[in-house]
């Protein structure tokens, strides 16, 4: 029997009797990170990296039964050795290493290779079998270095200010929004946020993360205050009455999908920035190589393309269907 199996509830370790990021309620869930398609409600017990606990509680309720472990700390479940390793996707995000009878598997969760300044950077883990995400597993997805990208965002903000417009940036509230705040904090004078984002920010500030304080957009803020300001909003606020209050404004969307013009034009954004917390094509290839794995499973994203390409490069690779969604059905893959 394989050490990890793909079942209708999630990735299951029979020997250790636990699931990794299960999408149906189970006894014991090992969670790679706090995004909603990986961390679901209703499990008897949760296990995550220490830094993920407050975020999971914010998402799933303070009463969940959760155990924290540190990166690299070994724990044993029914004789199976389990440890978490930095995935660099967001605060507390981890790859799950599972070892039993000398065989090592790693499930990546979501990851990126570039250090974002806030989460612990990705570390490759050697293994025999690697289960990798492949959200952006197409060679057209190739990120520019973030310093370059942030300077483009900053320039866009300055241009908006010269035109007397507010800059509204949509970014996923958990992860992407903090990355933006961290990198923009010294460059702009006034940053405001949607409630969904200020909530997360307050929580992280109380945990001691190096983030700026974020002013919450409330109905009593005079319209004049929005002029020249930067406002960070979740993608769901796009084209809402909430957003119209900032008029005149320019809308910038931060998402890896913005790499392709067609996606950008569909969003009706004034500007699109391909800022992603997922590995790009080169990042995925680099990560796979670094594991030294002889067997690879590609999950959510362009999994069939990525698996086929690895196969042609001599790596035994296969696509697997998970509830983390694929390129076709997932509407907001950043969750």
């Amino acid at each position, binding site marked *: 029997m394989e050490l990890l199996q793909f079942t209708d509830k999630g990735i299951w370790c029979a020997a250790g009797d636990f699931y990794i990021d299960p999408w149906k309620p189970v006894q014991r869930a090992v969670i790679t990170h706090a995004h909603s398609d990986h961390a679901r409600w209703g499990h008897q017990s949760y296990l995550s990296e220490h830094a993920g606990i407050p975020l999971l509680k914010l998402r799933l309720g303070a009463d969940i039964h959760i155990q924290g472990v540190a990166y690299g700390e070994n724990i044993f479940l029914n004789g199976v050795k389990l440890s978490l390793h930095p995935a660099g996707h967001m605060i507390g995000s981890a790859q799950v290493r599972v070892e039993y009878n000398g065989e090592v598997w790693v499930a990546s969760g979501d990851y990126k290779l570039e250090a974002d300044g806030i989460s612990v950077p990705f570390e490759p883990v050697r293994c025999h079998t690697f289960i990798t995400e492949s959200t952006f597993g197409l060679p057209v997805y190739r990120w520019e270095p973030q310093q370059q990208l942030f300077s483009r965002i900053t320039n866009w903000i300055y241009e908006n200010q010269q035109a007397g417009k507010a800059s509204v940036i949509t970014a996923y509230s958990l992860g992407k929004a903090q990355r933006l705040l961290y990198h923009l904090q010294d460059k702009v004078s006034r940053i405001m946020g949607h409630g969904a984002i200020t909530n997360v920010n307050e929580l992280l500030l109380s945990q001691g993360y190096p983030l700026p304080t974020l002013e919450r957009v409330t109905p009593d803020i005079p319209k004049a205050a929005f002029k020249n300001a930067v406002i960070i909003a979740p993608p769901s606020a796009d084209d809402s009455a909430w957003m119209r209050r900032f008029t005149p404004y320019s809308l910038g969307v931060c998402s890896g999908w913005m790499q392709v013009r067609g996606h950008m034009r569909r969003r009706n954004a004034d500007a699109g920035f391909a800022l992603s917390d997922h590995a790009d094509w080169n990042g995925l290839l680099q990560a796979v190589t670094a594991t030294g794995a002889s067997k690879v499973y590609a999950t959510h994203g362009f999994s069939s393309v990525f698996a086929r390409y690895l196969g*042609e490069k001599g790596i035994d690779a296969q696509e697997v269907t998970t509830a983390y969604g694929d390129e076709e059905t997932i509407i907001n893959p950043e969750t």
Partner: protein
Amino acid sequence: MRRKSPPPMAMKKPLLTRKHNTVQQFAQLVQLLSNSTKTNEKLDALSQYFATAPDKDKTWVLALFSGRRPKRTVNSTQLKNWCIQATGLPEWLFNECYLTVGDLAETIALLLPPHTHPASFPLYHWLQQLQQLEKATEAEKQAFILQAWDALDDSERFVFNKLITGGFRIGVSQKMMVNALAKTYDIPAATLSHMISGNWDPAQVTIEALLHQSTSGADASRPYPFYLAYALEDTPAGLGPIEAWQAEWKWDGIRGQIIKREGQLFVWSRGEELITDKFPEFTPLTGSLPDGTVIDGEILTYANGSPLPFQTLQTRIGRKNVTRKQLQEAPVAFLSYDLLEWEGADIREKPLIERRSILTQLIDLQQQPALLLSPEVNAASWDELALIREGARAQISEGLMLKKKSAPYQVGRKRGDWWKWKIDPYTIDAVMIYAQKGHGRRSNLYTDYTFAVKDGDQLVPFTKAYSGLTDKEIAEVDNWIKRHSLEKFGPVRTVEPKLVFEIAFEGIAASNRHKSGVALRFPRINRWRQDKPVSEINTLDDLKTLLRQSGSPEDKV
């Protein structure tokens, strides 16, 4: 696992520093135009561009955005193959990328490795270089393209590739460009529109020459901008007394202008394409029409005193050399609407009634079988006219045109003086059976559908259609398709025959190229019939009944 390092594409090339007046400026303009959804923003960007760009670049931009595409010297397949070689990617992976991106020029720009020999040149430099490749060997072309890719950054590469593949679909209408130029150069839009129409080569003409010529000294072939009508949404009663209006049949052919100046004849289509050579029927007019004459009208296939169905005209479109057989089976005539220039003078400001009276006399005197007058349709009241309009299909017409007798001939699409009063389209309820992803803005969304009608217990595909749904509906249908696919054939999916749509179309003709035996004209989705079960859709017999009623010959085309 690393991306292959770029092949040695570097040639001897001076390293120039980046300047403002380069193709970069054009790349930024294209980016802004394609992202913006606001007309004013686009207008400002264009006007700003025309105020600051190098003169030679302006002329090219004007040409590119008004459909004057430079001659293709490199084709799409070559570009694709060279990109595959330069990146070392397998062809199937390139194709996957293209399916997602939906645009070849963009796919290539995204796939190429970062440039290693950045160089900056103005737009016209690249275009001239491309033109010079016409007689080059394949190897020389490849060397030039690889060198160019290695000099340009991602956004520049995209526009460079677009210059080759053609078709900047970035939501810039001719009207918008004319308005931007009018703003920059302070010339009235109507005058400007005329100045930039006609035959000119951006490699030969300067923008100053183009914009400073007077009408009289202009290129003899230059057409006037067409006046286009809006659809009448209400009944014509709101237009006032019928006596103030002239009604004509609305013909379904090719809108055109016949120009006779300096002893030469020119025939233009509304797409500003010179089509004189395609229609030898008009050659005798060279001798008979007086110099300084411009007639507006419609090119139709026409025999025995009446138009033939549009399908016969299609056998003449897109063919440079016409065979004798085609001339016999699909002879064309020009149905004249209006006279724009007479005795060398622009008479567009005169009221229609005056222009029409000169036109009528002119056509009478000509006695040319290929030059006819589009007849007026007379009625004593709007109600009577409405009745006459019901018979439009029997006239092989799409309805009526209403033109105000006192109005001048305007420029572009304007409300008020001209209205098209079309008959209602045919409609058929049909079920979706195949779906395919769209292109450009709709890449990666299933937006192109094939529809079927019932024939007993079979479903027979009869048309494709893709417009007419809102973005929200498209997203909903797209989502449904992804969950209800039966099979995948490359980009096409077979879906469960569940979703019913009302398909509207303007005409129907017999076709032996289609399984259903019919071909539709202008099919589009009218609405999504969420209220209608598949069991109640129309049948193949219903289509055949429409075919018979339309009077289209069943055994032709």
